[in-house]
């Protein structure tokens, strides 16, 4: 039932765009253009990200990830997560599959959450770009305030979920 509603909505969306193009309905055409431009933007990143994730899965040893990002990694795990996040390209939509791969290899939940939030706030190219428009002071305040909060909240959320026996969804079955 839920699946059917989803399909109907998807069909309505596609028909609406096609009809808009045919009838020259401006807002509908803009909707289609927005969809395409975002699709193209993300397709410039995603396939490459997934190839790297695949290579990571076959080459990187589980022990390596466990040692640096797992249960025994302590505070250093967060440092690694933030460094890794700062080099992530794209945005959250890349961070999720990367986080999933790290999780599969034994990274602990709190480190995973820190990685995701950090990849939102401290990607290096983005921060440089931000500083050029809003000033270095602005970027510094954001980093200095958000990073400790990210670490604390991720530690709490991770510990809470770990206690509840939470497992991430399985993607490859």
């Amino acid at each position, binding site marked *: 039932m839920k699946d059917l509603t989803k399909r109907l909505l998807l069909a309505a969306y596609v028909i609406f765009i096609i009809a808009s193009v045919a009838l020259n309905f401006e807002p509908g055409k803009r909707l289609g253009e927005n969809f395409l431009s975002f699709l193209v933007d993300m397709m410039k990143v995603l396939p490459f990200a997934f190839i790297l994730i695949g290579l990571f899965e076959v080459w990187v040893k589980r022990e390596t990830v466990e040692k640096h990002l797992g249960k025994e990694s302590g505070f250093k795990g967060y440092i690694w997560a933030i460094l890794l996040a700062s080099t992530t390209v794209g945005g959250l939509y890349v961070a999720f599959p990367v986080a999933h791969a790290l999780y599969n290899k034994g990274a602990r939940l709190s480190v995973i959450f820190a990685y995701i939030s950090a990849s939102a706030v401290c990607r290096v190219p983005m921060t440089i770009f931000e500083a050029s428009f*809003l000033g270095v002071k602005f970027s510094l305040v954001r980093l200095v305030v958000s990073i400790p*909060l990210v670490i604390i909240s991720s530690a709490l959320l991770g510990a809470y979920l770990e206690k509840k026996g939470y497992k991430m969804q399985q993607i490859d079955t």
Partner: protein
Amino acid sequence: MKYLYAFTLVTLLLSLIADRKKTWQALKIACKRFFKIMPPFITMLILVSIALTFIPNKVILAVLGGGEHNRFLGMVLGLILGSVTLMPGFIAFPLCGILLKKGVPYMVLSAFSTSLMMVGVLTYPLEKAYFGSKVTIIRNAISLLIAIIVAIATGFVFGEIAR
């Protein structure tokens, strides 16, 4: 972006030289996961396109541009707009730059840009596929809280909130 392509290509070549079978396996994993995540990904793109059509940059400029008189209202509007939209930094920050020149307080811009990056209402379908709905909601609520704290701290540092 060029670095990503170069890095992927070099890593892939090195892997191919080192072990053909493993490389093949890696590509198989990559394909499988990529296609598995396509449905929620497309859902997200549809939501993004709808949000972008209803909330174009013009609207963001108009709404936040009015925030120069009432900072706290501006901050709340920034948080809302930042949460329900999604755009790459190369569009968002120039937009913030225009607003700054118009006299919009830093704390409003901080609320907007931080929630834009951290809070993902539109990425919900994708995040849910990896983490489930409960964790997705908790994580985004925490992110919103962090965005609020960052915005207020920005207000203090730039002297926009009276000490």
